């Protein structure tokens, strides 16, 4: 795979944070590529820069130096407005804490990115139903997050992440808040998604989840290391 053809291509990525007088180097020059249809797990100890890397390749943060391209577009040079529009249609996010909007039903949560993208109400309702059926929650579309279990909430969050058919699905510790059995359901769902062609990058401490990925990127102290 060559530079520019990958779904994600990162080169010499560095990200520093300033905490008062102290400058923390969260990433210290990371280079890698992720191809179309890959399922990649980023693993490593806490504080090694996994989530920072995920934020950069999801265009919700900018590197201090280096470059990151997503589908050939330079995410590090996008304005806030462009990055927002880019995330809407190219990147799907799944968070450890689900972060569903508590006042909306499961279906409305899934519809939210589609509404933002300007899809007609009837079309997005139809697609939201299909996605909820895909994650096994067709019968829960009218339920609010408080009426769903943790695993169900995470599946709704995955359906939401897929709503605008993104090129890339990013998940930050998606099983971190779930028990083993529910976590296994999510791992299985990620496998199914990847089998259906979705490019997935997960950040995780969960060995089982990491093992289900096709490739692991090991990190330590802000750099990629050999396992």
């Amino acid at each position, binding site marked *: 795979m060559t530079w520019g053809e990958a779904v994600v291509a990162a080169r010499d990525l560095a990200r520093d944070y300033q905490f008062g007088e102290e400058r923390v180097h969260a990433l210290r020059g990371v280079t890698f590529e992720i191809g179309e249809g890959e399922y990649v797990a980023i693993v490593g100890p806490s504080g090694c820069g996994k989530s920072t890397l995920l*934020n950069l390749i999801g265009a*919700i943060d900018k590197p201090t130096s280096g470059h990151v391209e997503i589908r050939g577009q330079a995410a590090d040079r996008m304005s806030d407005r462009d990055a*927002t529009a880019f995330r809407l249609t190219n990147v799907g*996010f799944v968070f450890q804490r689900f972060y569903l909007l508590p*006042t909306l039903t499961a279906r409305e949560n899934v519809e939210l*990115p589609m*509404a*933002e993208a300007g899809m007609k109400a009837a079309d997005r309702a139809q697609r939201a139903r299909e996605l909820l059926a895909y994650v096994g929650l067709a019968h829960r579309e009218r339920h609010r997050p408080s009426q769903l279990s943790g695993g169900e909430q995470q599946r709704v969050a995955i359906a939401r*992440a897929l709503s605008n058919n993104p090129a890339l699905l990013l998940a930050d510790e998606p099983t971190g808040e779930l028990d083993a059995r529910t976590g296994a359901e999510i791992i299985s769902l990620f496998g199914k998604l990847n089998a259906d062609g979705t490019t997935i990058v997960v950040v995780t401490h969960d060995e089982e989840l990491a093992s289900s990925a096709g490739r692991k990127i090991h990190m330590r102290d802000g750099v990629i290391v050999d396992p």
Partner: protein
Amino acid sequence: MILRLAWSSLRRHSTRTLLAMLGVAVATAMLLDMVMMSSGLRESFRELLLSRGFQLRLAPRGTLPFDTDATIENASGIIARLRTNPDVGTISPVLGATIHVPVNGRVVTSSSLGVDPRVQGDYELLSGKDPMAADEIVVNDDFIRETGAKVGDTIEVSTGYNPQLRTYSGTRRLVITGRARFIYGASNQLATAMQISTLQEMGGQSRRDDASLFMIKVRDDARVESVREWAEREIPDVSALSIETALAQVDQRLSYFRQLALILGTVSLFVGFLLVTTLVTVSVNERVGEITVMRALGVSRAHVVQQIVIEGVAITLAGAIAGLGLGLITARYLNAILADFPGLPVAIDFFLFQPRAAWTALGLLTLSGIAAGIYPSFRAASLPIATTLREEAIA
């Protein structure tokens, strides 16, 4: 979807939202009342002056109508002079006096107007008939209540009391021919009206041709201001007041009320603004995580701002609409209290509802609602996504 999100956010803490709306309603009611008071008193006075169609009033030089006991001499000569101007239509001379009526061993004192019943503009007849003969009088309900007299009764009326000699300049027996409501009468004021010639004669030789006031209707195609200027120039004994000049005098005298209304209105608007800003800010602070996730999912900054501003405007508008009703109720109540304000005609409304006042209050509040939502919404929409998510995760 933005509306749906805004609505669901407001419903999430329905009690808090309701309390904020009530707070805005109270501020709105006060604002509306102040706006109504600042312009209502003037408009009410204007309507009162115009109620009988007289656009011009001639009072003794340097005074306002019935502001003093001063009278204008040679009333018939002035009427004749006024008739020489083709722009002058109806002329209604009025003489004011205090009358005394003995009732069961005591004396009831009342104000009385001498008028020309054919063209008078001082009272509305409620029942009976005008005092078309020299020995007739119409009275108001306060007079009837105080004296126990009724239409058809004959009463002894005296005027021109001399406290040193304890005598009256004139006394007549007059028949009550009707009940009337006196347009410029103050609350609980006893009032009567008879022919001006009767009151002039009762006033003695010195008042035989006096008037306190001339009310004039100008012909339709004439300019009131031209006639006013002509009267001031041609009749040196009088001050001529058009509605506008009278209102200017009123403005001067009532500037205290207007300033008070302006200050209290501004305070209530500011209180409403602070209330909504506080509520929306608290609400946004509680939803920082959700808002950041929406931004991460691709919801634009503009849409986040819109949603939060809509929340502010919705609280403000709902509160404002309730407040308009509340304001009208309190205005009516306050009006009833202030109707007893000494020296002002009972027909004057301190709080006159005008659609423009309601629109002004609503417009100001909507603007304050938008302003109230702008700060918290920009703050929320400008949060750094990655940092905020990390802080939320740690929290």
